């Protein structure tokens, strides 16, 4: 003797749930809704703004910079105890090697972007493939792959990156692979978990009961619905990558080519001048933190926007 059609929730319901909260199976309105929520979120806007400025600076560094990068053109003006400060020629003064600090900072953005994008793309591609195979095929493939992932996760990510860098030698590619390697198990776990969570979702059962092939169900139904958390993680990894580059530089495993401007190394190489010329370390340190903050804000806001349950 029930009045309401089966399936209709009978609780008070949230009278505030507007149409934006409904999730359709293709995820389009989910993403559109997420975008609407992002536009109202001051944290998201701040993050997006930082990221946009960062990317623009990285792309247009050659146009913005007054000098050629990493020339050490004024190396003779730098002494162990003193680095020339701001002047008419050099907006922020020189760096510890005798290059224009402003130029170096601009080109550092470029290097950070390249390392971040390449390493995240690499970590995402390999990790997602492992996760997809494990979550999509299941069975012994899942067991074996996840044990491998467990092994990788048992090594703290910095040590994993160090191990990889040690094998590959000191090249800029090896820095990127090292950072990517530390992300692989995280992406693999994430996608697999997300796929598994959907295995018994009604729409997956419905698609299977229609006789769709397993591969079709996984690739065109489960995968698109699992992408949200992966994209969020990728955004957050862009933040970690920026910081890990600095850590690798600190350990002497960073970018080997001294003519490439890189924030991490700039920071590390000027720490002994913190008392006399604090701007040399503070500015790159600040830029690393700011860039990481931008990606973190964006990633966190994206996570919340994609998940109606998640509250800040």
């Amino acid at each position: 003797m029930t009045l309401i059609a089966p399936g209709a929730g009978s609780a008070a319901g949230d009278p505030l749930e507007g149409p934006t909260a409904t999730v359709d199976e293709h995820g389009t309105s989910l993403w559109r809704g997420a975008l609407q929520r992002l536009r109202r979120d001051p944290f998201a806007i701040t993050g997006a703004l930082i990221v946009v400025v960062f990317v623009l600076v990285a792309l247009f560094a050659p146009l913005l910079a007054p000098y050629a990068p990493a020339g050490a053109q004024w190396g003779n003006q730098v002494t162990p105890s003193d680095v020339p400060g701001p002047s008419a020629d050099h907006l922020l003064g020189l760096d510890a090697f005798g290059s224009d600090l402003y130029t170096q900072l601009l080109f550092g953005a470029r290097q950070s972007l390249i390392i971040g994008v390449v390493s995240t793309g690499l970590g995402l591609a390999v990790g997602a493939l492992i996760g997809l195979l494990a979550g999509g095929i299941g069975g012994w493939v899942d067991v074996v792959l996840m044990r491998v992932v467990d092994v990788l996760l048992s090594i703290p990510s910095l040590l994993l990156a160090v191990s990889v860098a040690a094998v590959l030698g000191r090249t800029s590619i090896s820095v990127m692979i090292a950072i990517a390697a530390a992300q692989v198990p995280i992406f693999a776990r994430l996608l697999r978990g997300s796929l598994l969570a959907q295995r018994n979702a009604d729409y997956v059962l419905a698609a299977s009961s229609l006789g769709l092939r397993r591969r079709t169900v996984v690739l065109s139904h489960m995968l698109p619905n699992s992408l949200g958390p992966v994209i969020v993680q990728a955004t957050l990894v862009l933040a970690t990558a920026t910081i890990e580059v600095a850590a690798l530089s600190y350990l002497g495993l960073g970018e080997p080519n001294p003519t490439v401007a890189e924030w991490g190394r700039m920071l590390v190489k000027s720490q002994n001048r913190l008392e006399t010329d604090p701007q040399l370390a503070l500015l790159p340190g600040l830029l690393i933190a700011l860039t990481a903050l931008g990606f973190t804000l964006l990633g966190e806001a994206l996570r919340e926007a994609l998940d109606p349950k998640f509250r800040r």
Partner: protein
Amino acid sequence: MTVPAVTLAARRREGTPLLSVRDLQVRFTRRGRAPVRAVDGVSFDVAPGQVVGLVGESGCGKSVTSLAVMGLLAPRGVEVEGEVLFEGQDLLALSSDELRELRGRDIAMVFQDPMTSLNPVVPVGTQVTEVLRRHAGMDRGQARDEAESLLERVGIPDPARRLKDYPHQLSGGMRQRALIAIALACKPRLLIADEPTTALDVTIQAQVLELLKQLVAETGTAMIMITHDLGVVAGICDEVNVMYAGRVVERAGRRELFASPRHQYTGGLLRSIPRLDAVRGGQLTPIPGSASDVLPWERGCAFAPRCSAQDADCLVPDLELTLDDVRPEHRLRCVHPVPPPGAAL
């Protein structure tokens, strides 16, 4: 706004009611959005020992009404107006600490979903005894003994062992029984049951309902039964308030309501459920549309968009809940009521 009808209702009954809800309004406000009026001027009374039903579809405001009475709505983003008089004292005017004294002792509540309403990491026994220790001033031992006898009374077998169990070790029906034991532990004068059987299996539903009915009868506890299920109403309520879009649209005694529904919405509800005495093979008549197809009450009858009897007359702003001139036992908010059985149109 709708005060005349309420005062009439109040005057009809001898003595003061146990609970008197007067023109209750609840608005949800959220920055950047138009406020949502979940409860829009609800008034009703509950006499001591009486069982009053609040019936309606999801989103009609019945649960929000009960949470407002209990003072359990979130402190921010919610505006509550009107009066909730419990033994003459306005609950809305009490401080949160004063309300805390009242809740669980004088007014208790049973919620819809027993699977999530018990704390998963605390033994069932503690969840019963904590309310006894808080309000009845019992020490640990007394509370334990009382909890055991409470579980026994609500029909939980082997109560001494169950006290040590965690919620996940109990079935849904058992958990709801435990929650009823918790609610009735301090012998409250008013029990609010918010869809207490909805989440249970059909066979268990009847048992739990029977248990509630028997317990409130024994203890003389008044009860507000909130439900969307007319079967529950038929089984247990003395008086029924039918709610639609945040307002009471019809009020009558249980028999009266079932024998002669007057509001078009109530009529629709009754026609949309199967009846044993209906012609075999006869069709059910569902109400078209859904509860979200509403008109704001300021513009006319909120049910008009889904009503088969609606016409231009229904666009009366703020239609009032008035005494039905055909069936005086009813109070009604409708321009074109359902004709009573046997009456010529």
